[in-house]
């Protein structure tokens, strides 16, 4: 008998227009902790969704061999029955239900269809202790923060008779302590014989916990590294993950004189009444004309919130501190005021809150600046076409025409449409939030090129990114955030993967 609990052989999975996985091979031994790593969009989540039956048998190619048998999971509950539990990247919880109900939904403690709530609560308490989460099981999940929700997901997975536990970026939203607890927990589970697959972007974690690590890149398996052979090290991982010379991807731009300060934040704090805590704490930063300022940090470190608080306080936080634009104290109350003041914000979630997916390219590009193509409130369709065509060309948007529905474009092209929308506003300061997430290398390069052109034209850019390479390759200066605070500022000369990660994991 093989020592593998799981073998995924030649798995291929295609979405409309995107080949997410091609011939991926992936083996996991019984009782090990196996990390799955790779850049955004490498196909990690997709591979796990294939395994768990979210993409049922028949929608992918290749074989899944689990506990020695070829499995054909037609639906999620099939994989659950086989002892596979998965915690998805986008948490799958029920905000209006209590903690104990969440833990046991889909796996109720029941006798003939009737739920034994006492037993449920008791077990929930035990599970909560197990994951070291100290909350009343009767609390509603919507009243908990993301970190605690993550632990509830783990408790939920443990509530099933789990043999293979899959965690998709479980620590992304956790602080240091919580992360450490979680890793300890995983090691404990290992001693109980539970096999674990963990997807993570945090290399330190991977190094500290992994028995093996498999690297995926562009939908393909690159290699599997073995800790016992001392292969799981940062340098080897990064080499395999990125797999290309940085000079190739990040176009050079001529060094420029430092311009005047166009944005300054002093003791900037944002309190989110919806979740009842500060999402940005005491931030001091500045942006000069004609530079790219990178903001790095782990997922959930508060970078998006910082951007939203600058961009006309789009989420209605309670703000403290000063925001200066071109040296003047400014108070922006709505995104449209921010736009008028010359700020543009390209959101990280382009499908969720960036684009109008059912509308065509030209309406999307003009959406934030209809004034620019209209007089007295009446739109000049022809101008709109001109503008849209212009951005289609200058941003290398690949589409049959500017009348194509945006929802049907590939991710990279969607991102360029989103970028085009904001360039058309003619901003002085462009905030890019994860501008290249889920985008292929070619498109990335094109976006970087555009960024350089914009800088040449005198614009300033704040680039929020989780990809270290991108931050290092593109920025003039780098701020690092962790736990909703700025942990430090680095000049590009001082910055390296190590220095950034050190600050980010503080």
């Amino acid at each position, binding site marked *: 008998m093989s020592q593998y609990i799981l073998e995924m052989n030649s798995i291929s999975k295609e979405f409309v227009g995107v080949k997410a996985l091609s011939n991926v091979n992936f083996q996991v031994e019984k009782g090990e902790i196996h990390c799955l790593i790779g850049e955004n969009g490498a196909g990690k989540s997709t591979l796990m969704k294939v395994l768990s039956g*979210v993409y049922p048998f028949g929608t992918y190619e290749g074989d899944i061999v689990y506990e020695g048998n070829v499995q054909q999971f037609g*639906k*999620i*509950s099939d994989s*659950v029955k086989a002892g596979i539990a998965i915690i*998805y990247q986008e*948490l*799958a*919880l*029920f*905000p*209006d*239900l209590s903690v104990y*109900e969440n833990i046991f*939904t*889909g796996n*109720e403690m*029941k006798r003939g*269809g*009737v*739920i034994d*709530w*006492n*037993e449920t*609560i*008791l077990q929930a308490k035990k599970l909560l202790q197990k994951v070291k989460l100290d909350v009343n099981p009767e609390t509603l999940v919507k009243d908990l923060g993301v970190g605690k929700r993550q632990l509830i997901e783990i408790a939920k997975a443990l509530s099933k008779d789990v043999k293979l536990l899959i965690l998709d970026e479980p620590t992304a939203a956790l602080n240091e302590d919580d992360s450490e607890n979680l890793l300890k927990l995983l090691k404990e589970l290992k001693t109980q014989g539970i096999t674990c697959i963990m997807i993570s972007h945090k290399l330190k974690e991977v190094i500290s916990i992994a028995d093996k690590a498999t690297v995926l890149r562009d939908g393909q398996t690159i290699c599997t590294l073995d800790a016992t052979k001392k292969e799981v090290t940062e340098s080897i991982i990064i080499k395999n993950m990125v797999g290309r010379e940085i000079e190739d991807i990040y176009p050079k731009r001529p060094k420029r004189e430092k311009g005047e300060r166009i944005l300054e934040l002093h003791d900037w704090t944002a309190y989110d009444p919806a979740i009842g805590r500060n999402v940005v704490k005491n931030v001091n930063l500045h942006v000069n004309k004609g530079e790219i300022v990178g903001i790095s940090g782990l997922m959930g470190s508060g970078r998006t919130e910082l951007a939203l608080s600058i961009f006309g306080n789009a989420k209605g936080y309670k703000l403290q501190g000063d925001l200066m634009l071109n040296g003047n104290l400014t108070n922006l109350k709505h995104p449209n005021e921010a736009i008028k003041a010359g700020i543009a914000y390209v959101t990280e979630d382009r499908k969720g809150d960036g684009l109008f997916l059912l509308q065509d390219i030209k309406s999307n590009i003009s959406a934030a600046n209809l004034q620019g193509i209209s007089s007295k409130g009446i739109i000049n369709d022809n101008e709109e076409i001109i503008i849209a065509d212009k951005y289609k060309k200058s941003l290398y948007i690949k589409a049959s025409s500017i009348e194509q529905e945006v929802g049907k474009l590939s991710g990279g092209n969607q991102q360029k449409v989103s970028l085009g929308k904001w360039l058309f506003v003619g901003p002085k300061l462009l905030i890019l939030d994860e501008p290249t997430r889920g985008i292929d290398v070619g498109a990335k390069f094109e976006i970087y090129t555009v960024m350089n052109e914009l800088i040449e034209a005198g614009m300033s850019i704040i680039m929020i990114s989780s990809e270290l390479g991108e931050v290092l390759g593109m920025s003039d200066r780098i701020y690092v955030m962790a736990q909703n605070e700025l942990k430090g500022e680095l000049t590009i000369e001082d910055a390296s993967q190590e220095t950034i990660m050190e600050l980010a994991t503080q």
Partner: protein
Amino acid sequence: MSFIKEVRTLVSENIRDYGMYIALAVIILTFTVMTNGLFISSRNISNLLDSAGYIAVLAVGMTLVIVIRHIDLSVGYAAGFLGAVAAILLTQAGVSMFITIPIILVLGVATGLLNGVLVAKIGIPSFVATLAGMLIFRGALLQVTEKTGTIIIRDDMFNAIGNGYIPSLMEVNGLHLLSLLVGMVGIIFYIYSEMNTRKNKMKYNFEVVSTGIFILKLVFVSAIIAYVTWILAGYNGFSWTVIVMLAVVLLYHFLTTKTVLGRHIYAVGSNPEAAHLSGINVKKITYIVFGSMGMLAALSGILFTARLQSATTTAGTLFELDAIAAAYVGGVSSAGGVGKVTGAIIGAIVMASLTNGMNLLGVGISYQYMIRGGVLAGAVIFDVMTRGRK
């Protein structure tokens, strides 16, 4: 001292849940004072509950439909149509009521499932799918009553469902014995189940309220049950309609709070994506909820038909809006996942109390509409406010 503090914490923590009960209490009190006690007389309360029955039953089903983020506009005429079919079976086909009722309930489930398929499988918005259903049932109702017009039902047993009372057995001081017994059994059952729950919780070493509070709660709820029983026993005792209504509430309360199916319904309402990822069959749940709605529409049609002892050509008109209003007054949220069946019943009773009280006071019909509209808006505003959402 700590006792009072405990009470205070309990109240302030649960204000939203109790809001509707408080509203009902306020309405009852106001009308009682304004009518010099007539409102709370045995007879009036009995009538009021009977008149709420066929809407309350619909409101229970509608609550679940709204919980899973849909709506069903077809239930009114579906109830009317199915009631007419029942009348035809009973009179023209001479089928016994013990066969008729199951047939009608099954037909109800079938119509509900049809809506469910349109919504979950074909993907039509429930609003339009059931609007079309509403037109179709309206035509069907006219169609089946075309020959006869209003169909009079002479089956006393059937009519008793809407008009009759459980047998009295014997009168004690003018109170109906069997009804008193039913009330007593209710109280004993309530106390037993509460004690049991508490004992179980203690066995599990869970935190429970202090003995004082516990006894207070037992006494308070028992007193309410006893009072209502006493009131009803003073007129004709429990009506069959009230018994049916209680049965539906108890059944659905049990289903929604204690069973896997119930929790899956709320899970689907709360987050359909997450429900799917948790291995719940969202389509199946949708079918079940619409099927149950159809069954309750059939039950409502039966109650209504029995109440009028006849199937009329306009039966069911606007029931759906009354049911939806009751569900919302009862605290359901169209954002999904929130809403209790007990709330739906209370909502239906609130709306029926308003109508009844205003009738007793002789309030003009035009003001009645406006006041009911105002109360509906007020209830939802209160709900939204206390939920602290934007």
